[in-house]
C-alpha cells in the first residue's frame, strides 16, 4: 500500500500515538514544539486527503486489513475532507497560539499533560469524522470527550472543576444514549458499518425498536452538540476552561457533533427519512426547527446580560448552534448548505473571538466587561482582530457570518418558513446589541487613568489570531470553497443512497445466530 492509501489511518493514528510521547518531554517548550509538529503533520495529511478525494473521489480504508463490514472501515468523502481540514487547521492554529497562553494559565508541571490531552482530543475529533463505523465513532467520541473534560478542569478558577464535572455527567449521558441507540440498530440489522446500516435499515424501518433507537440517538447527539434545551453544560465549560481550550473546543467540538448528527440522521438513517419523521412539534414544523429557534433567541437574549465575555460568547455559541440546526432542519439543499457552511464559518468566527479573548486574558486578566474600558486603544492590534470576528458574528456583509445568514434566510424564504426567517433576523438584532455593548466599552470609554500600559499579545499568538480573522473576511468575499463544498455535500447527503458495495452475504444475517440474536422477535 502506498502512503496515500494509508492517509486515512495516519490522520487518526498519528496524533493518537504522538499524544503520550508528550509526557516524556518534561520541558514545556519542548512539549509544545513537539505537539506543534504533530499538529502540522496532521493538517498536512488532511490537506493531502482533500486533494486525493478531489482527484479520485471518495475512498475507503480498511483498518488492519479487515474488510468491511467485519472490520472497521474509514471512509473519506468530500464532506469529511471539509471537516477534517477545518478541525486540523484550527487545531494547528490554536496549537501555535497555545505556547504563551498555556504557560501563563496552566501550572508548569501540567503543561506536558495538557498537550497529551490536546492531541487526544484532536484524535477523537478527527476519528469521529474519518470513521465509517458507528461504534468506532462512539469510541472516538469518548476519547475526545474525556480529554475535553480533563482540559476544562485545567482552568485556574475552582469553578472549572464543577463545570468539567457537569460536562462529564451530561456528556457521558449523551454518549451512553448514543450507544443505546446504535445497540438497538445493531439488534435489528446486525451491522455497525454505516453504509451497511443504510442499506439494511429500510427493511426494518417500521419496527418500534428502530423508532426507539432514533429517539435515543437524537437525544444523545443533541446533548453532545448542545442543542437547546440540552445546552446546560456548555456556558460554564466554555467560561472556566483555559482560553486555549475554549478556543479549540468552541471552534471544533460542537461542529463535529453537528457533523455526526448529520451523518447519522441523513446518511446512516437517511434511507428511512429518520430526521423527517422525528415527532413533529407544531404542524409540519419539526421539533428540531422549533428547538433551534428557541436556541437562537434565548441564547442571544441571555448573552446580552452577561458581564463576563467568555460566558457571553458561550451563550452566543448556543444561539449559533441553533442557526446550524435550523438550516439542517429545513431538509432542503439550500438549508443544509446553510447549516454546513455556518458550521465552517462559525468555527472561524468563534475561533477568532475566543483567541482574542485569550490574548486579553493574558495581558489584562479576567475578561469582565467593566475591565475593558478603552481596550481598543490599549491593545489595538489584538482588539481589531476581535472586532472582525464580532462583526462576522453579527453577519455584516463582507464577512463569513454574512454568507451563513444569507443562505439561511434564503433557505427559509424559499420554503416559505416565515417564522424561521424572522427568527434569524431577530436573533441577529440581539447579536448586534451584545456585540456593540462590548465595542462601545472598548472604544468609547477612555482607559482608566491608573491603568498600567499594556503590550500587545506576543506575535506567536497574534499570528494565528489574525490568520483566522482574515479568513473570516476572505470567506466572506470568496465562497468558492465553503459554499461550493457545502452545497455538493448537502446534495450528496440529502440524496444519499448506500453504494452498491461488495456483493457479500452478511455474516450475521445469514447464519442462524442472527435469527435468534435479534432477541425481540
Amino acid at each position, binding site marked *: 500500500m502506498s502512503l496515500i492509501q494509508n492517509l486515512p489511518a495516519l490522520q487518526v493514528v498519528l496524533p493518537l500515538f504522538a499524544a503520550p510521547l508528550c509526557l516524556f518531554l518534561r520541558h514545556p517548550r519542548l512539549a509544545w514544539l513537539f505537539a506543534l509538529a504533530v499538529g502540522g503533520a496532521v493538517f498536512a495529511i488532511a490537506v493531502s486527503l482533500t486533494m486525493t478525494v478531489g482527484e479520485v473521489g471518495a475512498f475507503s480504508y480498511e483498518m488492519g486489513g479487515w474488510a468491511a463490514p467485519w472490520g472497521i472501515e474509514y471512509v473519506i468523502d468530500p464532506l469529511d475532507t471539509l471537516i477534517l481540514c477545518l478541525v486540523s487547521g484550527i487545531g494547528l492554529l490554536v496549537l501555535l497560539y497555545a505556547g504563551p497562553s498555556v504557560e501563563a494559565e496552566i501550572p508548569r508541571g501540567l503543561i506536558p499533560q495538557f498537550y497529551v490531552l490536546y492531541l487526544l482530543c484532536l484524535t477523537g475529533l478527527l476519528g469521529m469524522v474519518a470513521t465509517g463505523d458507528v461504534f468506532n465513532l462512539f469510541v472516538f467520541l469518548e476519547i475526545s470527550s474525556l480529554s475535553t473534560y480533563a482540559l476544562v478542569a485545567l482552568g485556574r478558577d475552582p469553578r472549572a*472543576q464543577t463545570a468539567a464535572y457537569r460536562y462529564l*455527567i451530561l456528556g*457521558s449521558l449523551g454518549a451512553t444514549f448514543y450507544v*443505546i441507540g446504535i445497540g438497538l440498530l*445493531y439488534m435489528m440489522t446486525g451491522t455497525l458499518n454505516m453504509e451497511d446500516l443504510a442499506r439494511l435499515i429500510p427493511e426494518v424501518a417500521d419496527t418500534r425498536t428502530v423508532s426507539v433507537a432514533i429517539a435515543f440517538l437524537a437525544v444523545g447527539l443533541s446533548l453532545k452538540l448542545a442543542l437547546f434545551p440540552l445546552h446546560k453544560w456548555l456556558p460554564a465549560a466554555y467560561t472556566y476552561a483555559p482560553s486555549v481550550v475554549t478556543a479549540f473546543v468552541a471552534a471544533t467540538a460542537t461542529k463535529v457533533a453537528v457533523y455526526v448528527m448529520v451523518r447519522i440522521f441523513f446518511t446512516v438513517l437517511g434511507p428511512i427519512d429518520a430526521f423527517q419523521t422525528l415527532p413533529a412539534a407544531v404542524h409540519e414544523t419539526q421539533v428540531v426547527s422549533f428547538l433551534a429557534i428557541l436556541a437562537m433567541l434565548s441564547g442571544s437574549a441571555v448573552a446580552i446580560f452577561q458581564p463576563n465575555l467568555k460566558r457571553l460568547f458561550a451563550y452566543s455559541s448556543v444561539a449559533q448552534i441553533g442557526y446550524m440546526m435550523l438550516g439542517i432542519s429545513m431538509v432542503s439543499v439550500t438549508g443544509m448548505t446553510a447549516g454546513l457552511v455556518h458550521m465552517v464559518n462559525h468555527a472561524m468566527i468563534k475561533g477568532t473571538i475566543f483567541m482574542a479573548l485569550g490574548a486579553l486574558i493574558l495581558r489584562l486578566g479576567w475578561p469582565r466587561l467593566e475591565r475593558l474600558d478603552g481596550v481598543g486603544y490599549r491593545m489595538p492590534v489584538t482588539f481589531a482582530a476581535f472586532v472582525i470576528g464580532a462583526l462576522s458574528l453579527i453577519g455584516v456583509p463582507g464577512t463569513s457570518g454574512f454568507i451563513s445568514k444569507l443562505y439561511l434566510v434564503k433557505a427559509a424564504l424559499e420554503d416559505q418558513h416565515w417564522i424561521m426567517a424572522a427568527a434569524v433576523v431577530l436573533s441577529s438584532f440581539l447579536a448586534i446589541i451584545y456585540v456593540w455593548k462590548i465595542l462601545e466599552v472598548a472604544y468609547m470609554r477612555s482607559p482608566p487613568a491608573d491603568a498600567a500600559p499594556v503590550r500587545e499579545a506576543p506575535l506567536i499568538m497574534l499570528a494565528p489570531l489574525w490568520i483566522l480573522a482574515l479568513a473570516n473576511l476572505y470567506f466572506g468575499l470568496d465562497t468558492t470553497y465553503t459554499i461550493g463544498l457545502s452545497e455538493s455535500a448537502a446534495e450528496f447527503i440529502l440524496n444519499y443512497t448506500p453504494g452498491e458495495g461488495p456483493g457479500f452475504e452478511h455474516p450475521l444475517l445469514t447464519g442462524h445466530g442472527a435469527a435468534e*440474536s*435479534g*432477541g425481540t422477535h
Partner: protein
Amino acid sequence: MIETILGLYNYWIVIVLMMAGFYTVIARGNLAKKIIGLNIFQTSVFLLYITMGYVRGGTAPIVDPSGEATLYTNPLPSVLILTAIVVGIATTALGLALAVRIRESHGTLEEDEILAIEDRMDGEH
C-alpha cells in the same frame, strides 16, 4: 403473555437498571452518588449488548478442534462492551477525580451547597 414478561427477563432488568441509574444521575445532589448512578446506567447498557449477542444454548465462540458444528454466541457485542467498559471506567475515574478536586476547593460534595458557594463567587468577580 407470561412468556413475554418472563422470557425477556434480562430486558426488564436492563430497563430497571437504566431507569434507576438515570434517576440517580438526575435527582441526586451528591456528586459521588451521581457517578454511581452513571455507572449503574452504563451497566444496564452493557447488559443490553450482551443480551442481544447471546444465543440460547450457544457456547463461547472458540473453534472446536474436533470440527463439530457448534452453536456459538455472537462475540461482537461482547467485544464492543469490553471497549465500553474501558470507557466507563475512564469516565468514572475522571469523574471521581473531579469530585475529589471539588471537595478540596469547595469543601463539600452537595450540589446545592456548591451552587450557593459559586453564586457568591459570581458576585465577587
